[in-house]
């Protein structure tokens, strides 16, 4: 039962943190709760659909279909998070200024919302499809501890949701004029982490070379499966033994997105 809790918690953690951060980042935008729910809902529906055809997907591209599919989903999610951040860089100050005005809602957040809803849906879809496959495995096994595993899975999902809620509540304590700077950084790091994962799956499929593997090894003092390691993995893309290829993609995403944000900020339209 505990094993099931841990599996589902790990799979749901990243998606929950993305939702928590995004919910805080879009705080002043009217009706954003519905949009976030829509993104999460679409992600769950997508996860079930993907799980249903996952076997066929995995057989594509000479057995590397799973990796290619994950890579495409990750790349799209990175693009969406980047888009959101760039948009916020040019409109964020304006939104923050309006939001301070007695919590008045900002109506013109459609662009940021479209990007963010898509990013949520993609993250839930990617992490969720593995959870669905795990649950289907439990359901189809003749295991006597089936009920306990289902309860364990639900607990894992609750724990993941709690982590996301904690992130959201924590961010709510940040004053509005600083909130977008903080969420911007968090989203930037999430995107860089996903870019690193993108490299990892392509290395696994032998579509990218594993340069300097591993570039460093911190597994003795912060293992990937430790509490802090798991959290930093979901939040920053931490890995105890990454290849140089992953680090290159991580840094490239970080540099490119922040450069685009800076550019957008300097071209901020007059309020």
């Amino acid at each position, binding site marked *: 039962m505990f094993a099931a809790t841990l599996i589902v918690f790990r799979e749901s953690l990243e998606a929950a943190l993305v939702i928590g951060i995004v919910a805080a980042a879009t705080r002043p935008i009217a009706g954003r709760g519905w949009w976030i729910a829509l993104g999460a809902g679409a992600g769950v529906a997508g996860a079930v659909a993907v799980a249903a055809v996952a*076997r066929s997907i995995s057989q594509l591209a000479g057995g590397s279909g799973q990796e290619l599919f994950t890579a495409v989903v990750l790349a799209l999610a990175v693009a969406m998070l980047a888009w959101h951040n760039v948009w916020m860089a040019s409109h964020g100050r304006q939104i923050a200024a309006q939001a301070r005005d007695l919590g008045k809602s900002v109506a013109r957040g459609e662009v940021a919302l479209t990007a963010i809803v898509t990013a949520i849906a993609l993250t839930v879809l990617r992490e969720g499809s593995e959870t669905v496959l*795990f649950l289907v495995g439990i359901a189809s096994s003749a295991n006597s501890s089936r009920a306990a595993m289902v309860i364990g899975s639900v607990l894992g999902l609750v724990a993941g949701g709690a982590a996301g809620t904690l992130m959201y509540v924590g961010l709510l304590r940040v004053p509005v004029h600083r909130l977008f700077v903080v969420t911007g950084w968090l989203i930037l790091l999430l995107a860089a982490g996903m870019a690193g994962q993108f490299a990892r799956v392509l290395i696994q499929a*032998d579509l990218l070379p*594993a*340069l300097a593997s591993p570039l460093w090894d911190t597994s003795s003092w912060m293992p990937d499966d430790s509490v802090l390691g798991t959290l930093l993995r979901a939040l920053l893309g931490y890995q105890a033994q990454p290849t140089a290829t992953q680090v290159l993609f991580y840094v490239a995403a970080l540099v490119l997105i922040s450069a685009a944000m800076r550019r957008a900020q300097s071209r901020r339209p007059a309020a």
Partner: protein
Amino acid sequence: MKVLLALLSLSGPVLAADPEVTIQLHEHHFAPSEIKVPAGTKVKLIIDNQDATPEEFDSFALNREKIVFPNSKAIVFIGPLKPGRYEFVGEFNQKTAKGVVIAE
């Protein structure tokens, strides 16, 4: 540039065929559960799941995770590895599905 070339050379010869190792998964046990691979070269792992349930081949040490569908095979490229022991598990059945890759 020199550093880049040195890094590239670590990824092993491109033309030589990668060594292949097949691991069977039967009743949530890996067989063999201990596999020896050459260090310093990329290796093609073939995981043959003979069970009726899906499994996730998972290893933090190898930096890999992949779903293996019921009664089917999955390919995972690993390495090039430094000499050492690299543990892996079947994440969905961690109590029994355990193994180790030994690079030497």
